[in-house]
């Protein structure tokens, strides 16, 4: 899959946001107490907002992707299981997982933007990367304020 | 200068000689000796000029401290001659016959501190306070606020705020809610 339409790119992005929703849902499933669940519910709402935004952007156009990026596309649909927090996760655990997930999304969208030939599509990816970067900053800020107060 | 100090102390019991500056010394004498001291300084020691005379209300010690400044043009040296009088009997010998202009300072002290100088010309006339009816206003127990409140009408528009109350109103008005 060396080529993708603009629609497919958006599909991909939407899929990715939905995967994030699933990621937090999954965490919520193993959450032991109400406070963890409510924190995750808030993050789920954020990701849902992203997906909705992308749905609204669905449009025409094509994008040419390199082979390696196309492979990434497939891989990225799955959420990395490596730093999944434990059941007794603290606020720190949740925020760390969320921030690193956003960081990976940011990198991926950035790469897609660089490879996209079509200016319109590049712009879309750049916007997405920007969104993810803001997301990550939000989590990091929350981490600074609520977790690492003395750090 | 030492010589002068010794002379004053020997003749008039002057004390506390102090050289404040190269050109200015101070000394304290009994009020009863003041006139003699000033006369001697004027006629024998070259301090021909009376530069200034005033008083300080030392209410804690119940005295008025009077200060006469005399100057020697020959040596460009001045002396502050201090003496004290009872605050409850504020009467001092006039020196207007030594220096004509002394009556002006005495009239000022009469008006501002309520110190009398019997025989001093026009000593009971108004000096700068026209129509003043209150107590001598440079006395430390003169309550300027009470005098103002009793004498003048308050101009409308005055209001003040207490810092703590104002900060509460602005920053945490709900505290008593």
């Amino acid at each position, binding site marked *: 899959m060396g080529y993708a339409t603009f629609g497919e790119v958006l599909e991909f992005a939407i899929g990715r946001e939905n995967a994030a929703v699933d990621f937090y849902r999954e965490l919520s499933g193993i959450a032991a107490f109400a406070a963890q669940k409510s924190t995750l519910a808030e993050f789920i709402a954020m990701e849902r907002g992203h997906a909705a935004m992308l749905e609204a952007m669905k449009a025409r156009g094509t994008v040419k992707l390199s082979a390696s990026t196309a492979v990434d596309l497939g891989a990225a649909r799955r959420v990395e299981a490596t730093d999944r927090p434990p059941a007794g996760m603290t606020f720190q655990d949740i925020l760390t997982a969320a921030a690193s997930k956003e960081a990976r999304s940011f990198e991926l969208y950035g790469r897609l933007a660089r490879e996209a030939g079509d200016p319109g599509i590049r712009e879309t990816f750049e916007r997405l990367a920007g969104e993810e970067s803001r997301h990550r900053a939000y989590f990091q800020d929350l981490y600074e304020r609520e977790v690492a107060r003395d*750090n | 200068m030492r010589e002068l100090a010794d002379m004053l102390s020997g003749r008039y019991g002057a004390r506390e000689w102090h050289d404040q500056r190269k050109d200015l010394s101070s000394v304290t004498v009994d009020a009863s000796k003041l006139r003699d001291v000033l006369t001697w300084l004027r006629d024998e020691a070259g301090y021909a000029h009376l530069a200034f005379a005033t008083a300080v209300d030392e209410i804690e010690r119940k005295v008025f401290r009077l200060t006469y400044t005399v100057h020697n043009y020959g040596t460009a040296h001045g002396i502050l001659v201090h003496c004290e009088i009872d605050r409850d009997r504020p009467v001092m010998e006039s020196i207007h016959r030594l220096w004509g202009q002394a009556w002006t300072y005495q009239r000022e002290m009469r008006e501002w501190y309520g110190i009398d100088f019997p025989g001093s010309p026009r000593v009971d006339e108004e000096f700068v306070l026209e129509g003043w009816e209150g107590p001598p206003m440079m006395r430390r127990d003169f309550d300027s*606020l009470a005098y103002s409140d009793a004498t003048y009408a308050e101009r409308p528009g005055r209001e003040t705020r207490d810092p703590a109350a104002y900060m509460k109103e602005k*920053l945490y008005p709900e505290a008593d809610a």
Partner: protein
Amino acid sequence: MDIKDIIAPFAVWKRAFEKPFTVRKPIDERPGAPRYRGFHINDADTCVGCGTCESICMNKAIDLVPVEGRSPSGGDSGLRPRVDYGRCCWCALCVDICPSGSLGMSNEYLWIDSDPEVFRYVPGVDPKPWDGAELGYRRAEGYRLLDMERVPMPELSHAEGVKSFLELVKGYSREQAEREADRCVACGVCVASCPAHMDIPGYINAVRGGDLETGLRLLYETNPFPEACGRICTRACESACAIGSGGDPVAIRWLKRYIADQVELADYGKSLPRAESATGRKVAVVGAGPGGLSAAYYLALLGHKVTVFEKDEAPGGMLRYGIPEYRLPYPALDKDVDYIRSLGVEIRHGATVGKDPALAKLREDFDAVYLSTGLPSAYRLDVPGDEHPRVLDGVAVLAAATRGEELGLGRRVAVVGGGNVAMDAARTALRRGCEVDIVYRRRQVDMPADPEEIREAKAEGARLIERAIPLRVEDSGDGGARFVWNEAEMVQKEPGKRPVPEPIPGAVVTERYDSIIAAIGQGPELSYITEADGVEVRRMKPVTDRTGRTSVPTVFAGGDLVNEKKDAISAIADGHRAARAIDRILGGRGD
């Protein structure tokens, strides 16, 4: 007639074109003397609106008034002095006493206007021609009517202090306390800064007058922990102190301590209010820290039966298990707690809410519940290897020290973090004979810890390693751990935000330690709130209104768990506020 008589009148003509010695009339310029006391000037940015000028003015010529564009904040009331020249007698006492030194006088004395209303203005705010005048009266150098230096507090020397857990600060004598109290100008600017809004000028005045019973009563109106707060309060009041605008702020904290230290516990009842008659209502408080016990005290005063549930074996929460005894000796804390207990407050120790009893059970058995469970556990370092057995939880180390346990820290200890927990852990380790490095990501000035604590930790021998970003922890193979960090430089990334440490490429440092104490921050323990309880929690904090009420009308929460300041006095204030709100839902007036 002599020829001279004829020539003489003409002789003076030779001076006709010289500069005259006389002054031309009318005289236009009559400048005041350089130090003449003319119309007031005020540097409105330096002025703190304390009103000391108003207090000293013997003619009541000065009012404190709100001015456009200034609102109260921190140590500034937002008010500024307005001078009424119908009353001013130009004595300049206001200039001489001004704590901040903002007030002065120009040498301008001529001002003619037919409107009498204009002779009343706010210097430095209402523009005047003499604003910024160089000449005029200023307080003479070195001449102060106020005592700008704090009465020094007797303390153990650092060399002596680090040898034991003896209290470092010895406390003021009566003479010292009264002298220090005498420095206060009673402006009250500090009151807003205190989270509990204590009547600071009131109790300082009581110290000055030697009336400690009144002092104690004033303290307890807003704070039932005067012994503790008199020692360890974060004292936002002192940062706001008007005297601090031009010298050392008044030692408000030490004066509070002085009052509590001087009155025997047995005599407290003489000055403090008795509890109102029993209402028959019951309130459960979760957590016997300062916040929970503050709520308990005020609830008990209002006649409610209070039961406090505490997981630990002794009361006081972080005051006992977080603050070392050299800063807050246990007998002082016990005195505060014992007085609260004497009002009939029952503290059940070893009761972990969530396990036994459940929160649901408390909600059932009591008319209201107050949650004040704080932030009991340290967050981990969040670097690879941070689960190494030699990486210890700073809060747990302090608690173990309180319990008198063997800490087993070894010889070389790294404390990671820059808050008070880090400083306390470092100083505790020093007292156990360790060599201590405090490793901090930013610079000393960025540390959230009390500057006094940082200074003392260093003076007692801790080495501060700044700008060190933890990278990982490795096993050293000999029972210790290797701590790896990256040296950093501070970069101002966004204007207005605090600078961020950026790792310097390649500047990686490895040090071996016997123990690494993590003190980067603390988190809540909220597993006791179940979904069935219905208490809304957002970002690991119960959601409350300003009285502390959660989404469940009979459940309230406060203290470190909820507020932003996360210090004892804020928790105490929260407890008091919640107690009043709880009283209202139980049918009381809430006062």
